[in-house]
């Protein structure tokens, strides 16, 4: 027993392990194990196209997850992101396909709507002090209704890749010669880098962590906590908008009233990556790794004969497991 402890301590103090972080290392192992498992179980899985679809799934979840990581770090949450993402993609697409606006304008609308929703959530949580989960649950309902109302309850299809306006799909997946390159992954990496710097090296990032750790103490240190608390939700909204663009580029038709439940993929990803539900600590890189666990499952499960309905069950179970680990980890402190 004591020997094991010593061994695990030695492992934990290994410089490489320390640099990556214990939990993140475990998550990397889980990703590799999952990948190996699916490869062994299903020959069809061992294809380049599978990796592409794993990445396809990862884009919109990543964007949402990066955003919601900030909300989680403040000690809050944002349940409106899943429904919101679909709502913004719908409305943006409506402007493009039904009103004939340029695709670029449509994309801008998607992001702006996300930002507006972020401001609304920020006002509710930071200024009116509503509990984050109930505030964002309400805005989730509002987003759900608004999405269908603004588009008249119709499904929306953004321009196809083959059409002139379909260029925006190339942002995420570009075809060079015969091979499709997952360009989106590059954007994800860049945003991960930018947000890591933001969180750890800038004042707003520092204050967001401080608010999650002890809001009152941060306020008494002369920091405008309302402003920075709001900012976390606004950034979360903007990233949800980006997720909306990725979602529109990845999928063909977008149906109103869908999207509920996708927020849980993002939240589960963030928590798997080591962000705590109790606030104050979180890692953007960890979130990316967590998202890969989720998108690996989403892509892989159909290969072993488990369809969409099983994915809901798996999401539920993974979420319970991730939160449980977080609870244990928090209790230890």
């Amino acid at each position, binding site marked *: 027993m004591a020997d094991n402890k010593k061994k695990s301590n030695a492992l934990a103090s290994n410089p490489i392990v320390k640099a990556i972080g214990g939990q993140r290392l475990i998550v990397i192992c889980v990703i590799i194990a999952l990948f190996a498992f699916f490869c062994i179980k299903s020959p069809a899985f061992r294809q380049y196209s599978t990796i592409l679809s794993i990445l396809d799934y990862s884009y919109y979840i990543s964007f949402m997850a990066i955003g919601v990581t900030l909300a989680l770090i403040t000690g809050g949450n944002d349940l409106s992101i899943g429904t919101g993402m679909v709502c913004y993609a719908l409305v943006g697409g409506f402007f493009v396909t039904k009103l004939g606006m340029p695709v670029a304008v449509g994309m801008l609308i998607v992001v702006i709507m996300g930002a507006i929703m972020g401001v609304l959530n920020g006002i509710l949580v930071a200024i009116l002090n509503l*509990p984050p989960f*109930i505030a964002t649950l309400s805005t*989730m309902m509002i987003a759900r209704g608004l999405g269908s*109302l603004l588009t008249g309850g119709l499904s929306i299809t953004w321009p196809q890749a083959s059409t002139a306006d379909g260029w925006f799909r190339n942002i995420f997946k570009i075809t060079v010669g015969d091979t499709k390159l997952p360009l989106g992954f590059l954007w994800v990496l860049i945003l991960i880098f930018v947000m890591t710097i933001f969180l750890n090296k800038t004042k707003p990032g520092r204050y967001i962590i401080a608010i999650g750790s002890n809001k009152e103490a941060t306020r008494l240190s002369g920091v405008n906590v309302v402003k920075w608390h709001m900012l976390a939700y606004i950034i979360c909204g903007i990233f949800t908008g980006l997720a909306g663009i990725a979602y529109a580029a990845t999928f063909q038709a977008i149906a109103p009233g869908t999207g509920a439940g996708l927020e849980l993929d993002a939240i589960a990803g963030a928590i798997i990556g080591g962000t705590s539900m109790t606030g104050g600590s979180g890692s953007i890189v960890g979130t990316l790794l967590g998202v890969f666990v989720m998108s690996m499952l989403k892509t892989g499960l159909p290969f072993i004969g488990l369809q969409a309905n099983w994915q809901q069950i798996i999401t*539920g179970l993974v979420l*319970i497991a991730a*939160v449980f680990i977080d609870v244990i980890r928090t209790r230890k402190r």
Partner: protein
Amino acid sequence: MDKIKNNALVKKIGFNRVILIGVLILMYLLFGALCVALGRASFFTMNRIYSALNYAYFLGFLALGVTFVIATGGIDFSVGPVMFCAALIAGYSLNTHGVPLAACLLIAIVVGTVFGIINGILVAYLDMPSFITSMASMMLAKGVGSVFTKTQSVSWPQLADANGWYRNLVKITSGTTIIPTGLFIFIVAAIICAIILNKTKAGRYILCLGSNKEAVRLSGVDVRKWEALAYILCGMLAGMAAIFYVGAYTTVQPGLGDTFNNEAIASCVMGGTSMSGGIASIGGTFIGVLIISILQEGILAMGFQKDYQYVITGIIVLVAVWADIRSRQRRN
């Protein structure tokens, strides 16, 4: 104003609930007027009332359950999908496996209770945050329901069919007279819930632990048991809600139901149950359910899409929770 507040009858019902009843009546009249203004068929018909009541029964059972959970200071986002899951599993057993109807109704309640037990264990015994836990079990409920029925929707029998008697639980039609049995059952259920909450040990401990769990634990009370019980009651009531849902609408689709969570929560917070726990009112929830039901019926009657209801429900929750927080801040 004070005169009204001090009136004996008002005092007995509670001032806030009197206002809620006022809101309910005003809404009813407002929808009537709007229907006239929009040139729609009259809102003031018995059919509209029965239709609103159909909605109120299953929503009522959901909201009664959620009231217990919110009283503990928690939340349950899984009730809607659990109701659907229960209706799917029970209906599929009835249609495909030929299980007797009475047993199927029991199955529905058991399925709901099982989900309640899962939530109860996770939240009360493993100390997991209730909102994220119940969202996870919402996913489980959706998935299990749809796996069980192989993603098919399930239609329960019609009244005229061999196994149709269960629909009499909602209303009995003989000739031109309609007896709203569901209303009686709902009222009885609400009274029983009110008694549990206010007169029994379980209710007392649920309310107290919602107010200060640690102090109750240090009084030598097994708080985990009582907290879990709230979730189990909630799950059981969601199972019962399934019976009234199919009794009114017969058809259930897999993968849905989450919008009902929001409406159930809205009914509770509107009725004066505090999101921070410790304060709950079954009477308030009862009226809240009627308000949401009239709202959905009114939107239908005006020929609007259900989407308006989502938006309005969202706003209702925000306003109710904000008002609750404000009133508490003022008290302190």
